[in-house]
């Protein structure tokens, strides 16, 4: 055991950790936008849109992320699109996360009591106003803790984008392992960084949950 290996590559690992967080953050943001659209399709009244949304969720939750990533990577190459690996990486994370986020958002919408929408209709609110002022604010609030949880899951899943060559935490740990011939120390170092990042966001999630619970008077 040579713990110095971790200390020597500390700067390198920190940079890689920033990339991991950045890639995951981009993945969760784009995933949210796609997920919101998928959720809207799933709760829509049109049957074909409902089915389309359900199919999206089933496919992107049922196919392993690594297969999705490689598929996107090769798919783009097949059509001669020479996009940087980072686009394939963020795209893959976003498409996959969107399926999970769509379900989180749908669950949150269902958690808003039906009576509120009915009461708003009775008071003369238009459908758009009901969405904007009654349903969305509450549903978004309910979905914050599970979304933070999804972000932590995505942070861990992002280790797979090392396969398409992004210099994030896993890739950099591999590089350190092959440069120093000290794989054990390199991977322990990388793992500690993941652990630290996840504990930070888990604490943030706990804080958000408590604040939201306090806000709703529970």
């Amino acid at each position, binding site marked *: 055991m040579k713990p110095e290996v971790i200390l020597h590559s500390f700067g390198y690992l920190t940079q890689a950790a920033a990339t991991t967080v950045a890639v995951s953050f981009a993945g969760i943001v784009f995933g949210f936008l796609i997920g919101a659209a998928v959720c809207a399709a799933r709760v829509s009244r049109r049957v074909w849109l409902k089915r389309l949304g359900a199919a999206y969720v089933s496919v992107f939750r049922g196919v392993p992320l690594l297969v999705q990533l490689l598929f996107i990577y090769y798919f783009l190459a097949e059509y001669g699109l020479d996009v940087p690996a980072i686009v394939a990486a963020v795209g893959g994370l976003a498409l996959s996360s969107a399926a999970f986020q769509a379900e989180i958002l749908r669950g949150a919408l269902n958690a808003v009591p039906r009576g509120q929408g009915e009461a708003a209709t009775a008071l003369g609110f238009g459908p758009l106003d009901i969405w904007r002022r009654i349903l969305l604010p509450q549903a978004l609030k309910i979905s914050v803790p599970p979304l933070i949880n999804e972000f932590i899951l995505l942070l861990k899943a992002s280790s797979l984008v090392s396969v398409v060559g992004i210099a994030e935490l896993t890739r950099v740990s591999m590089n350190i392992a092959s440069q120093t011939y000290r*794989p054990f120390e390199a991977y322990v170092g990388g*793992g500690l960084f993941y652990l630290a990042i996840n504990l930070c966001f888990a604490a943030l999630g706990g804080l958000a949950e408590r604040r939201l619970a306090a806000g709703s008077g529970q």
Partner: protein
Amino acid sequence: MNPDVLWRYAPSLISGFGVTILCWGAGGALGLLIGFAITLMNRLGIPPLRWALRAFIEVFRGTPFLMQLFLIYAGGPSIGLRLGATTAGIVGLGLYSSAYFAEIFRAGFASVPAGQIEAATSVGMAPFDTLLRVTLPGALIAAVPSIVNMLIVLSKETVVLSIITVPELMYQVQTMAAETFTAFDAIFAMAVLYWLLVETVSRLGARLEARVTGYLAREERAA
């Protein structure tokens, strides 16, 4: 996709599928065993042991599975642990899932109403009998849906084993893709295969769930 290519590679694809199922089954079984052992040890209530188990669970739930695999497979020899790729993969799947299974079993035990245990004690059942005949059946049945869910997650994680060269399905597909320049078709086929596998397991899981928790629904109807 060219059917000739598929025909030529059929033996390696079938053996890859076999390795995938083997790793999934063995890894899941190992994970259930270790996870259950962790939960039982936790129930002994010895503080230092509990802290160590808590740390184990946090580490394996807080780091990516790929990282854990690299640590076991590539880092193992540094601490005298030399495993073949497939063995390392199974051990990795087992350790990773055990952390989740331990939490699932813990929740299962927590869901058994205290009144049932008190009732068992008051009718004169010994502590061990209470565990075996009251607490355990209740806890396991409560855990079934989450166990099925985790096994589905685990079936998708087996793909990651291809990165440490375990000759499972994904690895064979990538080999085929590299040798025949049919990456796109091969990976597309792969996505369809996995989707079918996951859908099948989800459906089977839902049926199993309905069977073992069926009596709960009947009780509710009776009440």
